[in-house]
């Protein structure tokens, strides 16, 4: 009777717990969505920055609902004249397909939203999904309490917010969700051994491949984990089920990549199928599925992928090799191990021993032979077998050191310590505790989590951008740590004094302003019926009972304080640091708020005052924006797949006027756009990026030499600057007539007076300068109708005529 009652109450509490955790999850989702709306509230509902404009345009122009159109669309004149660009082969379709499908669903439900609105809000919606996926993943690792905590942490981790605020319509917006969800399904398969989840896993992985170049991370991490499990003697059929279908999927992608022919891929996979029989039929399904899925992603199927995105070109080179290598090796190993276990089951122990000695001795001989051949091959090759790729494998900073176009992007730099604190805040302190918690006890799932955090910490140390991969891992670890800590403390408090528990609850009620805290309270409740880990709890109990009650209460209080601090920081980061669309800038000064809308002013000018076919040259950062907002053809854009082309523009910018004119003219350029921050102090202008133009240009055209632009190794634009610097096109276009603003040409970014103040342009003419001089547009003068003779007696004609034209467009310094 009594047992029945307890079981009934347990069921009731179980149900209550489920409802509560569902409600909490819902609230977490709402929070994840709403915390990302600061950008819309503070600015407006616009697409942010650079790459999202391209994605938006692809979504908008192609309305990617019909697969064939998407795969084959060749955006011609509008993109990177004159080389053109095949959209299907150079873009990850996941994001645009997702947003397009969302738009379509909404429209079919008679909710008439514009494509832009859907694009703006895709990222917040998917971050809510990502929180859900985090909950599921952490739940698989350490239970529901940890899951809820981790979900709450992820919902507002600044690193993720920086990439997924409303308007940040970039691949990462959906990819992080796909990443976490793929991991969840992998762990789920590992825990259950269910083929159903394995299939789902393959599909989720496919979605990830569609979405982001970061899929290489998954496909390196999972084999590593499998290897770890095998090495530590944790091989099980479940591991096999979890890994093999996914791996086949990957192998099929690789095969496709190499052969370009799906038939070949199918045949080579079919040959590997013979090894295992019982799962065979399912695996035929998987192979077919994997092959078909992989074949559907043109960006992966075509070679262009590895150079198409910055990320891909950086990690891709390394990962490409690693991927095929690690995968095939691990794939072979897991089959060998499976075979060994199988044979072990069949043979008697003695026979097995004999067989092992035989196989090992034969294997050793073969290994030595192969090794000898390899050494001979490596020694005979002139480079000793070390190519740039292998170097980038060994030294992850290789690409950023020696390939300037990758190094020029700030998000490819190694992060600084403060950026860790900025992006993951208190999680940095909680992660070690989480790792320790994962070892009590170490399961397949928790070992995966440890591996995930370790590798992602390494990668985030290589480049800032990969902080985004670290953030979910840090959230999971911190969630585990917090949840375990609260478990332990609460257990302690309850065990110590039952009367204190109610007080503690009251206290919780009072300080319930943070969601995370609520979830921790939740975890406490959930944990009681968590029968899975009684041993753990008892362990904890034994160890922690030595602490006095007051200490526990204070510890709980401090943890809550830590959480509160995290929330405050996240909200601040979301509101202040990461919500600027960077197309509209604001600055606060003593006389109020200034809005700098110069970019849109310039793009609007271009779209209204130039011919449709005119080509605009600018540094590649502004390529997508010019294409999307000014609707003009650009020479280079943010898709940096053609280094030579970008180097050409870099060379033109670093050349003297005449040489630059020749280069631009050969590219049919009509207008040149430069971004100049010297008047208002906008630091990320072209002069500050100029050294990269020199480096990238010099990498292809050796007559551009970086030392020519530096005085004693210093980059300067004042009177000490080198003549090459003062005569290059970028200097001239940036500082043309600058002295007219304040009479001495004081640059507010570099905090110095410019070196050359009065000069004329002979091959370019200024046609437009925005209100704050942030964007300046120049037109190439047409070649002279006549060529003048040598006699110098005649007074210069062009000078007077252009100055009369110019007076019309003359601008006043708005600050005077």
């Amino acid at each position, binding site marked *: 009777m009594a047992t029945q009652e307890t079981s009934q109450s347990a069921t009731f509490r179980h149900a209550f717990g489920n409802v509560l955790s569902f409600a909490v999850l819902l609230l977490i989702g709402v929070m994840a969505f709403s915390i990302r709306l600061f950008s819309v509230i503070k600015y407006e509902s616009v697409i942010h920055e650079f790459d999202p404009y391209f994605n938006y345009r692809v979504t908008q122009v192609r309305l990617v609902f019909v697969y064939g159109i998407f795969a084959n669309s060749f955006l011609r004149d509008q993109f990177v004249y004159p080389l053109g660009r095949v959209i299907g082969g150079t873009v990850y379709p996941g994001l645009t397909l997702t947003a397009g499908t969302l738009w379509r669903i909404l429209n079919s439900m008679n909710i008439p939203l514009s494509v832009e609105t859907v694009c703006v809000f895709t990222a917040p919606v998917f971050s809510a999904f990502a929180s859900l996926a985090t909950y599921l993943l952490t739940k698989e690792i350490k239970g529901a309490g940890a899951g809820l905590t981790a979900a709450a942490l992820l919902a507002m981790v600044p690193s993720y917010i920086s990439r997924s605020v409303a308007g940040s319509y970039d691949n990462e917006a959906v990819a992080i969700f796909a990443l976490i969800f793929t991991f969840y399904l992998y762990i789920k398969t590992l825990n259950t051994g269910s083929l159903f989840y394995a299939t789902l896993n393959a599909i989720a992985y496919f979605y990830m491949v569609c979405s982001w170049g970061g899929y290489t991370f998954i496909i390196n991490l999972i084999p590593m984990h499998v290897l770890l499990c095998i090495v530590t003697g944790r091989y099980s059929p479940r591991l096999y089920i979890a890994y093999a279908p996914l791996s086949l999927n990957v192998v099929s992608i690789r095969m496709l990549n190499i052969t370009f022919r799906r038939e070949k891929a199918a045949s080579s996979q079919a040959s590997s199928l013979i090894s295992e029989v019982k799962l065979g039929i399912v695996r035929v399904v998987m192979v077919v599925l994997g092959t078909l899925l992989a074949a559907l992603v043109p960006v992966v199927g075509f070679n262009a992928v590895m150079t198409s995105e910055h990320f891909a070109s950086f990690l891709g080179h390394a990962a490409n090799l690693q991927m095929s290598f690690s995968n095939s090796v691990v794939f072979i190993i897991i089959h060998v191990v499976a075979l060994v276990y199988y044979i072990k089951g069949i043979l008697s122990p003695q026979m097995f021993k004999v067989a092992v000695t035989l196989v090992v001795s034969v294997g050793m001989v073969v290994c030595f032979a192969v090794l000898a051949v390899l050494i001979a091959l490596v020694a005979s090759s002139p480079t000793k077998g070390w190519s740039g790729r292998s170097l980038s494998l060994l030294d992850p900073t290789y690409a950023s050191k020696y390939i300037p176009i990758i190094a020029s992007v700030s998000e490819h730099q190694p992060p600084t310590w403060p950026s860790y604190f900025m992006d993951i805040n208190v999680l940095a302190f909680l992660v070690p505790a989480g790792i320790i918690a994962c070892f009590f006890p170490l399961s397949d799932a928790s070992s995966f989590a440890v591996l995930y955090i370790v590798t992602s910490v390494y990668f985030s140390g290589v480049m800032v951008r990969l902080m985004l991969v670290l953030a979910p891992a840090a959230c999971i670890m911190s969630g585990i740590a917090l949840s375990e800590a609260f478990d332990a403390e609460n257990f302690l408090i309850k065990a110590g004094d039952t009367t204190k528990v109610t007080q503690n609850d009251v206290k919780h009620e009072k300080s319930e302003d943070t969601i995370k805290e609520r979830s921790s309270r939740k975890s406490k409740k959930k944990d009681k019926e968590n029968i899975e880990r009684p041993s753990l709890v008892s362990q904890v109990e034994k160890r922690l009972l030595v602490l006095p009650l007051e200490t526990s209460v204070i510890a709980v209080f401090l943890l809550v304080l830590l959480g509160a601090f995290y929330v405050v920081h996240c909200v601040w980061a979301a509101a202040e640091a990461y919500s600027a669309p960077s197309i509209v800038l604001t600055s606060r000064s003593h006389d109020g708020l200034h809005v700098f809308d110069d970019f849109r002013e310039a793009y609007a000018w271009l779209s209204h005052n130039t011919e449709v076919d005119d080509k605009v040259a600018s540094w590649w950062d502004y390529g997508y924006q010019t294409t999307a907002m000014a609707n003009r053809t650009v020479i280079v854009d943010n898709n940096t797949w053609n280094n030579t082309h970008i180097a050409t523009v870099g060379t033109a910018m670093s050349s003297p006027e005449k040489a630059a004119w020749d280069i631009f003219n050969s590219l049919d350029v009509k207008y040149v756009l430069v971004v100049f921050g010297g008047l208002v102090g906008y630091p990320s202008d072209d002069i500050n990026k100029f050294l990269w133009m020199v480096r990238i240009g010099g990498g292809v055209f050796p007559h551009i030499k970086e030392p020519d632009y530096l005085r004693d190794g210093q980059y300067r634009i004042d009177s000490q600057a080198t003549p090459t610097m003062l005569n290059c096109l970028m200097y001239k276009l940036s500082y043309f007539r600058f002295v007219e603003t304040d009479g001495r040409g004081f640059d507010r970014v570099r905090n110095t007076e410019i070196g050359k103040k009065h000069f004329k342009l002979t091959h370019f003419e200024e046609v437009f300068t925005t209100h704050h001089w942030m964007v300046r547009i120049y037109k190439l003068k047409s070649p002279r109708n006549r*060529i003048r*003779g040598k006699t110098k007696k005649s007074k210069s004609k062009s000078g007077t005529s252009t100055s009369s034209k110019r007076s019309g467009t003359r601008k006043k310094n708005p600050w005077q």
Partner: protein
Amino acid sequence: MAAPKFAFLLLNLISILPLLVSSFSVDRPTDRRILVLLDDLSLKSSHSLFFSSLKSRGFDLDFKLADDPAIAVKRYGQYMYDGLILLSPSTERFGGSLDVEGVLDFVDSGHDLIVAADANASDLIRNIAAECGVDFDEDPSAVVVDHSSYAVSETEGDHTLIAADDFIQSDVILGNKKIEAPVLFKGIGHSLNPANSMVLKALSASPSSYSTNPSSKLSSQPPSLYGTAISLVSVVQARNAARIMISGSLDMFSNRLFRAGVQKSGSLNKYEKSGNEQFITELSKWIFHERGHLKAVNLRHNKVGESEEPSMYRINDDLEFSVEIFEWSGSSWVPHVSKDVQVQFYMMSPYVLKTLSTNGKGLYHTSFKVPDVYGVFQFKVEYQKLGYTSLSLSKQIPVRPFKHNEYERFITTAFPYYGASFSMMAGFFIFSGVYLYNK
């Protein structure tokens, strides 16, 4: 009240009408109205042969003194003349609103110019010439002297009347008929910048000529200009097809030298009549676009077997390209026949360069295969030939790669793979069946 107003309107209309009809147009490139600026109205009679030849070809000459305060080439932003002849070497500044800038703007808006200088030419004329790429000898009193190819005359003289016969080798510029007699020249020489591709020597001096002041003794220093570097008459074709003729001699346009007989020193041939008339007349025909003006129309391209112009090609498409080129004969457009017109299929560099074949009726055509490169290409016809106006046509056309379903579906070389794949599937299926159900 109404009637005089109407008459006034009509009068206005009538005065505008010829302007509308005869203004320089793309369809009729030949000039109509020419302003002639003179130092002295007596030139009108002393150079009447030259003027009457122009008049007889239908030009409408308007004579003005160079310092006439009423000179204006432009009214309400429209040019009132199509050509300008400056036979005023000594004018220091023009009357009215015209100045160096005005003359150059006149040229830069596509109008033609003839300038004649003389010994002691003014800075104004020198500046105009310099702006067009012609540098007259800086010594103001220097003239061209030639002691070996001077024109033989009764008195020995100072050998400043030169008999020059080193003409530019171009039928387009100087006409089909060869100029037999030497051209009599008396004036100053000029030099050209060899790097300047737009200016040409129409009449060069002989190797023994030099530029000096004939009344002063030769100093030990060599003269600044000598030999074939001296150009006597030069022509310029600007990028906008405006044509300019610059001559160092005003006298060579005169009736006296038109009619004079000529015998080159050291030569036994004595000509009754100098080559001046023919040379000047033919050259002025070229200058005023009665000859050597091309136009290209109907640039077309299409896939082989189709007639419509596509908006985009696919790589490896076969296409046909055609363009029509006509030449202005002075009164009508006639087909231009040439074997050296080429088309480029261009993306940063020409991927295809083909010589067009012509049917003799102005149509040039060819066909070629689109290269195996995608991108935004251009059809480019760049035709620059001595004497002709340059043709520069381009038409942008994107070339796309294959669609995903345009590749070959089954390739012969892959048949072993297909075989392996399907036999493996079948074998696997049989094996599974046997293994699972045959205990």
